[in-house]
């Protein structure tokens, strides 16, 4: 099966859908690879390198499109100025295309492709399930743009990120606010931390807190109960009251911080406005805002897509090509995502668009010209919404416990049948020798033990002392024995012993409950 890698025609697009390394891997998956001349030029991959990896270099763009079975691209097809032809028209009738499509926004392209009876997989529609993580170009590209956002910010920021103490003076670390702790946000946090900045981050999803904190940033919180976890690990739109509280927080933060990175995107909606012009004006001169949502309208009121603008001495960066600005690695990640997808689809020899494959089905836009998008809704929520980007591993690796654990489980494996055997013998013995009433009581006893076992495990460790006190109190139930023994009213030893037992047990009952109450009253938030 022949794969074609065309040169990207979008102005400023430097990425390419395959690198020499991924060409090698495509070939080992059983594909023949054809690469348009100069396809990797701007990602610093030469034609020679591709040829060295076993690709055939094709000079003629139209020939590349028409002679291959599957086109791998970065951007959705668009008008090729050099040929004055739309790329869709270069695709042969019934051809196959895998690239970013954004079918929601690019209906015209999808319709043109449908007219060509094409089969199209949109990389942006790969579902966010854990199995498809390795094919998810949006994640890998977000990771890059988050990092690059910080690099761009530092370029326009006239100060250090990390605090410095030198003979020439002392500077405090830059304060960075990251709004939205998705893949891009987390990557920005990691990059800013790496440069030594003090980072704070905000996200509407409660799940983000741990990830933010794990990167050493402060998680900003609203005094407000609402979780913004939407489908597929993206944020959802929040209530008006929430947004008001959120805006107040941003306004306060803007006065403090030097760098703001906004990454708030809601699927198929214009991006929410988070930073107003007034907030921008309240920032310190020299501050920088990087708006990663610029392509969809921007999170900042004064953002201009693809431009850097200055408003009252604050630089607002609205680049939409941040990944292209890191084209070498971006192409590598993009290419690797494609390798994983194609491997999943059966490789070159068994290539198949499998409608049962959840990852492929989710991303399939057209099958032989038939519209397949949007896919039927999945009901199960994504378990792991956003994986943090790859960060430096922590300094000390976790203590390996694997061998211990397996030893324990082996011991348990031995113990379990042994215990069952003992239990069986005990039960058989009881059945043979015990009398009826005893067995009845024994049944109650064993069932109660199980109930107790279940109930007690749910007790929070912080309340173990009150637990002991309350069990003290209820084990005073032995008072029942005392009462039964002394109720006759006779003046004999049995009754007197019973009465003493009542005194003892009452101490427990009253003492236990009262001291428990005293303790529990003390616990407060």
């Amino acid at each position, binding site marked *: 099966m022949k794969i074609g890698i065309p040169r990207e025609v979008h102005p400023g697009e430097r990425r390419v859908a395959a690198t020499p390394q991924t060409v090698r891997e495509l070939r080992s998956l059983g594909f023949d690879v054809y690469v348009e001349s100069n396809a990797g030029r701007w990602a610093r991959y030469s034609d020679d390198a591709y040829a060295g990896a076993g690709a055939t270099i094709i000079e003629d763009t139209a020939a590349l499109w028409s002679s291959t079975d599957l086109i791998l691209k970065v951007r959705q097809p668009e008008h090729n100025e050099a040929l004055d032809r739309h790329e869709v028209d270069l695709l042969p009738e019934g051809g196959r295309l895998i690239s970013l499509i954004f079918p929601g926004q690019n209906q015209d392209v999808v319709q043109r492709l449908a007219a060509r009876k094409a089969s199209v997989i949109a990389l942006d529609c790969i579902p966010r399930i854990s199995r498809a993580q390795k094919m998810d170009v949006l994640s890998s590209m977000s990771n890059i743009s988050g990092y690059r956002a910080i690099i761009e910010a530092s370029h326009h920021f006239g100060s250090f990120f990390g605090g410095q103490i030198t003979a020439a003076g002392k500077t405090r670390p830059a304060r960075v606010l990251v709004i939205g702790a998705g893949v891009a946000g987390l990557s920005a946090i990691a990059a800013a931390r790496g440069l030594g900045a003090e980072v704070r981050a905000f996200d509407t999803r409660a799940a983000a807190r741990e990830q933010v904190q794990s990167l050493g940033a402060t998680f900003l919180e609203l005094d407000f109960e609402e979780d913004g976890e939407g489908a597929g690990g993206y944020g959802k739109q929040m209530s008006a009251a929430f947004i008001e509280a959120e805006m107040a927080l941003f306004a306060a933060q803007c006065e403090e911080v030097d760098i703001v990175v906004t990454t708030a995107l809601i699927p198929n909606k214009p991006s929410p406005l988070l930073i107003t012009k007034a907030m921008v004006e309240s920032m310190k001169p020299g501050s920088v805002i990087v708006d990663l949502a610029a392509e969809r309208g921007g999170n900042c009121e004064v953002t201009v897509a693809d431009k850097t603008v200055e408003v009252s001495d604050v630089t607002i960066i609205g680049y939409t090509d941040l990944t292209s600005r890191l084209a070498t690695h971006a192409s590598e990640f993009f290419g690797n995502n494609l390798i994983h997808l194609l491997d999943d689809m059966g490789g070159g020899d068994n290539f198949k668009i499998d409608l049962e494959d959840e990852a492929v089905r989710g991303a399939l836009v057209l099958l032989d010209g038939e519209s397949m998008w949007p896919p039927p809704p999945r009901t199960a929520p994504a378990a792991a919404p956003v994986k943090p980007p790859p960060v430096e591993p922590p300094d000390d690796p976790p203590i390996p416990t694997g061998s211990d654990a397996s030893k324990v489980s082996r011991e348990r494996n031995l113990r379990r049948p042994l215990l069952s055997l003992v239990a069986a013998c005990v039960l058989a013995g009881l059945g043979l020798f015990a009398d009826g009433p005893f067995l009845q009581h024994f049944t109650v006893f064993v069932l109660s033990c199980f109930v107790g076992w279940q109930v007690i495990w749910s007790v929070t*460790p912080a309340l173990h002392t009150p637990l002991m006190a309350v069990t003290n109190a209820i*084990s005073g139930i032995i008072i029942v024995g005392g009462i039964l023994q002394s109720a006759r009213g006779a003046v004999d030893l049995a009754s007197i012993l019973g009465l003493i037992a009542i005194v003892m047990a009452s101490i427990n009952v009253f003492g236990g409950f009262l001291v428990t109450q005293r303790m529990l009253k003390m616990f407060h938030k």
Partner: protein
Amino acid sequence: MDSLPTLVSAAYLGAAVLFILSLGGLSSQETARRGNVYGMAGMAVALLAVLASTSIGGASPAYLPMVAAVVVGGALGAVAAARVAMTSMPQLVAALHSFVGLAAVLVGVSTYLHPSHAAGGSEVVALLEIYADVCLGAITFTGSVVAWGKLQGTISGKSVLIPGRHVVNAAMVLAIVGLAVPFVGDGMVTASGDAPGLIWLLAMAVLAAVLGIHAVLAIGGADMPVVVSLLNSYSGWTAAAAGFMLSNDLLIVTGALVGSSGAILSYIMCEAMNRSIWSVVLGGFGTSTQASSTPAPSAGQPGEVQPVDVDQLAGVLKEAKEVVVVPGYGMAVAQAQHLVKDFGALMRERGATLRFAIHPVAGRLPGHMNVLLAEAGVPYDIVLEMDEINDDLRRTDVVLVIGANDIVNPGALDDESSPIYGMPVLHVWESGTVVVLKRGMATGYAGVGNPLFYKSNTRMLFGDAKDSMSALVAALRST
């Protein structure tokens, strides 16, 4: 009233359910108080039911002495509950265990002398039930008394190990089992009131009492949380045995609940100390074993202890953003919890994040530190369990260890020769600076030297925890 027996049974069932709800309520701080109310309601239902049941069959029970006994006992209990200092909770709990044990022995002997309930079934089973009840009761009673003494300080916390104690224990257990034979052989009390087996029953009770004393004497101070939990469990099983003896399902259910509760607590405590339950039960642990009692770290150079004074510490804390306090038994002994709370509030006012890290076996009772901090008014949501906070310690600027030792001992992780090797500990040394508040260089209850004190990022603040904390709070306030 023909329906009375069934009504009583229904009431027992209700009481049992209320007890279960009561324990279930303790699953969170929000529901705990409601749980306690359920427990009280259950007890009230049970008492009314059993009092009503004594009139079954037209008997006219003598209520007055019983009510008087409840009033006397109740008053004693109420006074104890109102007076006890939270630092003395372990003693109170141990004392309450002993009362259950003693009550069980008394009820057992009484039942033997006057087997009134006569629920049918074989005599041998009935006799064995009495025997088991008295035996468990006696062990619980004396064991708890010794535990109380150790916790109170009346009896030395060090473990008392007589030579060949395992043999002695085994012999006593065998004798207890053996005495059952003549006891059962002599049979029940005769119609004329002779109690031929009483002598055997009492002899066994004495043996069991000695066994209880010996077993707990052999257990060292650091294992006290396990011992108290175990005795908690015993007191439950004792109540269950009494239930068998009296053919009373409510006693059986309640006893089983309490028994499992204690068993689970013991298990949790053992896990937290990396001990097997047997090594604790058989005694001899939690003591300075063999040669490891030398306080110097066993491997490597002893290193230098770096003392710090209150003003220096206040300076360090002023810069800190993340602070964790690890309280131990020393905080309880010094009664420093209120000052620790003030310190926490002060740090939070200054904008630092301050949290508390609680090791499962900190203190002498499961959950003891939580109660002390709650008493001082520390909000429970900043008091975290070891597992919740251990990973955060490496991002913490300052850890303040107040009167804790073994639970922050890095030797438990890497020194295989250490007696506490394998015990999960709080990784305080991973933080920026560890400050240990300690009276002197003495070892903890486990008698093990602590390499933490010699680490380069450790500072020692010597002195009584209460004095140190009050000086520290003053120093922080003044700046």
